[in-house]
Structure formats: C-alpha cells, structure tokens
C-alpha cells in the first residue's frame, strides 16, 4: 500500500511521473489549472499505489511526497 | 624596528603577509613576477596559500573564491594582465567582496613594453570592469610607501567591503630602497558575518552574488554602494603637498613620476621659480580638495605623467578648469627627466626668474 501527496502549486505538469508510474494511475488535471497556469498531476486511483516512489524520483520539482 | 634593503615588489609582498594576507593567486608577467616568487617562497612557511593560476582570469576568480570565505587575499599583475582580470574585478565589486589587487604598470596598449608606465590610470580609476563601481586606488611613490599602503589597502577593503588596488609601476617594483617594517604588526579584524565559509548549521545560508534581475533592486543596490563611495571620497582621499604654500606653478604627479617631478621642483626653485608639487597618494578617491587648496594662489598647474595625459582630466575637474592646466608626459616606458620637466616649467612661467 502506498500513498502520494502532490503539491499542486509546485507541479509544472511535465508528465515525467506519469510516464514512469508502473500502475498507470497518474494523469494531468483536465479541468483545473494551478496558480501558474499549469495542469498538475493527479492520482486517480490511490488504492492501486504501491508507494514505489518512481514518480517522485523523476519529478524535477520535488512536488511529490510518498508514504508506504 | 626592522630595517631592510628590499626590492619594491618583494617589500610589497612581505608587507602583504604582515598585513594578514593568507592567500595569493598570481600569474607570471613582467615586471611584477618577484611578487609571485616571493609569495611562493614565503607562503608555505607561514601556513598561507600560494597558487600559480592557469591565467590572470583564473587568478582573479580564485581571489573571488577566497574573498568569499572572508579570507584576506591578494593578486598581482601588470597592465595586460589587469585587463584580463577586469571581468573578475567587476564581479568582486558587484558581490561586495574585499581583496587587494596590485598593478605594476608597464607600457601599452596591447603587449606594449615592459618598462615603467602610468598609462593604466584611466583603467584603474574609471573603468576597471563593466558596470557602475569603483575600487580604491593607492599610488605609492617609494618602496616604504608601498609597504605602508598595503596594510591600509587590506584594512579599507575590509571596512568598505570592496576591492582596493595598489597602482605601482615597473620603476617602483624593481627599485631597491631601505624599508622599515613594524616589529609586531597587529592585524585588524573586521566583521565577516557575510562570508560563505560554511554555516555549520548555525545560521541561514549566506549568498555571495552579483546577479540582481529586477532593475529597481539592482539600482537600489548600486545606489547603496555609491553611498559608501561618497563616504570614501570624503574620508579617504590622500595627497602630500611639497612647497605649495607660495607656489605660482603647482605640479601634480603621482607614483615614480612624483619623485622625478619633485627634483624638477627643486631645480625650478634654485632658478627662482616658485614651483610646488601635489602628489596624490590615492587616485580614487581623487584628492581634489588637496589640489584645489594647494593651487589657490597659483597661476597655473602642470600635470606630469608617464602617459599621454590621463590624470590631467581629474586635475582640471578638481579646479573646475579655473586655471590653465598644462601637461608634460612621456609614454611607452620612457621616464621623464627632471630637466625635461624643468624646461616645461620654464616655458609655462616665462623663463628663469634670475
């Protein structure tokens, strides 16, 4: 079981996390933007998260915290 | 008091060590190489650092690094090498770092020659790099004065957090004169809480920086620096006056040229011409008040330089062009003789009075 927390304001929507997620449970926000105008990453199925932290390791903005 | 017969360059290096200079970064260039050679010999013995850099650019940036840690640091070079250091000096000034830079001037432009010159006056006092900034420039005219001014250069650099320069020339660097060093020199300590020397988890991180992207903030930072410059201009300008009280013609000369000029003043006096000399010891700040006061009763001034005429602009400004300011100079490494200068004095004052 894992859990990620995304700092929506830090996220620049680059998508590197989405690309490496083994469970494919991450996507960019579709109807919301952060204050800087970026779509930000959301986890749409946290129950599937295994807490591997791959997303966080690829995040250039250190916008993801991971619990396991 | 310890009295030694020493070469100018070596005396200067020894004085720097006694003033607490812990790091020296240099690059060989005539006619200042003895400074590096002396530092190479002495620094390892006192636990200091001597490093021969890969270039003058490397050396001045090593100075930037050591100065950032709050360490007393010096570099030396000669004219073409100072041009290479210009970038680093601008960054050092923009980062408010203290250091001492020696320029033992030689003839220019380009590779020029290796004989004494004062053709870097403009560079030293007006444009030692890009941007709005100054360095304090000292102009010694004896080996003893080189020694005395080095300590002052380190102190003022620390007090005002800015680079200071000793503007010497090949003549002073190479000549041997007796010098006296104080037996036990106390080294003044100044606040270095701004230094990037590792915060030991005891304070917020320090940043040494010259990049300010907001125009308003950059302007404010430069204006604050210029408030410091105003204080320096008021308090640190230095000059010596010689026989100026009754002088009808006031000569202005600095460095090695002042020695020759003083002889010319003596020759003129022997001929009944009331000549005097103002010798600036700081070139920035320029001792304008000294010159104005000393020439109040004179009818003209004569600026003597080993250049085509650079300091003369500041002399004219000092007296607001209220009197004729004549010029005599030799350049390219040629040293003016007292008789040449005497002839000039005679021409200006209408010949010998006896």
């Amino acid at each position: 079981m894992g859990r990620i927390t995304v700092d929506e304001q830090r996220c620049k929507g680059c998508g590197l996390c989405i690309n490496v997620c083994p469970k494919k449970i991450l996507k960019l926000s579709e109807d919301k933007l952060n204050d800087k105008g970026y779509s930000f990453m959301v986890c749409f199925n946290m129950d599937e998260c295994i807490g591997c932290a791959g997303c966080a390791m690829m995040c250039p903005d250190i916008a993801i915290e991971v619990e396991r | 008091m310890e009295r030694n017969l020493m070469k100018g360059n070596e005396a200067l290096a020894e004085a720097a060590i006694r003033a607490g200079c812990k790091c020296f970064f240099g690059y060989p260039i005539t006619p200042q190489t003895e400074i590096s050679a002396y530092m190479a010999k002495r620094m390892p013995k006192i636990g200091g650092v001597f490093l021969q850099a890969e270039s003058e650019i490397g050396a001045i940036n090593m100075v930037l690094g050591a100065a950032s840690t709050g360490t007393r640091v010096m570099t030396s070079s000669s004219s073409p090498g100072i041009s290479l250091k210009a970038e680093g000096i601008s960054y050092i000034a923009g980062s408010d770092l203290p250091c001492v830079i020696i320029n033992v001037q030689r003839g220019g432009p380009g590779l020029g020659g290796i004989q004494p010159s004062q053709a870097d006056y403009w560079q030293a006092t007006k444009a030692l790099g890009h941007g709005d900034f100054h360095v304090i420039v000292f102009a010694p005219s004896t080996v003893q004065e080189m020694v005395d001014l080095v300590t002052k250069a380190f102190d003022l650099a620390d007090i005002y957090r800015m680079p200071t320069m000793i503007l010497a020339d090949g003549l002073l660097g190479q000549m041997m004169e007796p010098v006296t060093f104080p037996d036990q020199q106390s080294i003044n300590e100044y606040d270095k809480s701004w230094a990037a020397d590792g915060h030991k988890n005891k304070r917020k991180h320090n940043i040494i920086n010259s990049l300010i992207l907001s125009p308003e903030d950059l302007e404010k930072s430069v204006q604050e620096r210029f408030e410091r410059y105003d204080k320096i201009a008021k308090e640190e300008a230095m000059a010596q006056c010689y026989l100026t009280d009754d002088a009808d013609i006031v000569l202005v000369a600095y460095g090695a040229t002042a020695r020759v000029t003083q002889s010319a003043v003596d020759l003129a006096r022997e001929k009944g011409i009331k000549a005097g000399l103002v010798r600036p010891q700081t070139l920035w700040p320029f001792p304008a008040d000294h010159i104005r006061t000393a020439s109040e009763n004179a009818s003209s001034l004569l600026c003597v330089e080993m250049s085509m005429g650079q300091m003369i602009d500041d002399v004219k400004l000092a007296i607001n062009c209220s009197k004729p300011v004549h010029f005599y100079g030799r350049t390219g490494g040629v040293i003016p003789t007292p008789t040449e200068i005497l002839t000039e004095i005679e021409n200006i004052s209408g010949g010998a009075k006896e």
Partner: protein
Amino acid sequence: MSNTEKTTKKVFTRPNALADVPTHYCPGCTHGIVHRLIAEAIDELDCLGDAIGVCPVGCSVMAYDYFNCDMIQAPHGRAPAVATGVKRAKPDNIVFTYQGDGDLAAIGTGETVHAATRGENITIIFINNTTYGMTGGQMAPTTLPGQVTQTTPYGRDTDTAGFPIRVSEMLATLDGVAYAERVSVDNIKNVNRAKKAIKKAFEYQTQKKGFTIIEVLSTCPTNWGLDPVKSLKWLEENMMPYYPLGVYKDKEAQ
C-alpha cells in the same frame, strides 16, 4: 485512524539541503532532479554546514536560492577557479560547482582543465544537455553532429563547427582527477546511479582524494522543441551512443 495510516511512513520527501521554494526551470527540465540528488548526498553525508556551492552563469545561475548551504555565484565558466579559491582558503569545507556544458566546456575549459590537473579537491557537477539553455538554445561544445540549434539551423556541420567534446573522457586522462563518471537522469535506474555517483564524488572529496567530476546527461525540452517525455527518449537514443555512460576514472580502482 485506520491501520494503514498508522503503519505507513514517508519514504520520499524533500531533502533538507534543498530549499523549499519553487524553481525557475522549465517544465520537465532535469536540473531539478540533479539538484535533489546533490541535496540528498549532502544530507546523507551530513555536511550541509560545511558545504559551499559555486554556480556560474547559465540556467542554473540562480541555484544559490535552491540550496540551503552557503552559495557563491561565479562569472561564466570561472566556477572551478572560484571553487579553487574557496577550497584553498577553507580546505575542510565541501566545495562543489554546478556547471552547464557551455560554461564548463567552452568559456571555462581552461579553468576546468587546470582545476582537474591540479587535483583540486573539489567536486564538479557537469550538466550536459547539448545546448545553451538560458540564452535560448544555441550550439554548445557538446551539441551533437547534425543537431539543429539556433546557431546551427542546418544542423551542426562538423566541417565548420567542429566536433563535440567528450568531457569525462578528456579529463580522465589527467593525473589529478580522482573520479570521473558519466551518468544520466533519463530513467529511475539511471537516476539512482547518478545519486550514487554524486555521493561517491563527495565522499572522495571528504577523503581528500582530489578532483572529482560527475557528468550528467540531461534534457532541455524547451530548446530541443520536444515534450519532456520525448526529450528523455531523445537523450537515450542520441546522446548515449555519443556519450556512453560509465566510470572513466577511479583512482581507487586503479
């Protein structure tokens, strides 16, 4: 509280040495990953109070705001000389530079080579992304043959613009170099390797072994004109063949 919440613990958080501020880097730029790896190495070696970073001109010029250790901003290309001055004045501090390819391998080649050959006990983190990022994507000394940049609009023609410099290989020939490794941050495995390399370089420095350099193959999505994910692929397919990953010098292994 559910059982899950009781038993979970944080396995990934921002390192202490990295300032808690947003960076100015473009979306997907890998500078941020490398910053984190440096900060983690500093945390793990517990040397934040002794570390002094030097960042010269380029996209990373404002890195002084991103690390919590003392920081110095250096003139373009001069970071190895500045770091030399710092280290000689304060030999017990941990001194690192963070330099791009234009900075390190063009304008600062002299400073880099001589710091290396002196065996200056500093660590250089060298970001190779084949371009001048901050000025808008001009040809760098590491731009690949045929690569289109703002100043090689028809592709880098090696007849007129010469060949890329392989920095790690070049520096590995110098006796003063204690450690030189080329790493990449294009995938999780390589990010972990990069972290190990950076930490090793810092460890060598604490052991006073000499000059260490970690070259990091990185991306510049904005100036490459590719999205961040495609940029990683481009790095793997184009940069890695020309700049093979690996340890080029390890004084301890010899």
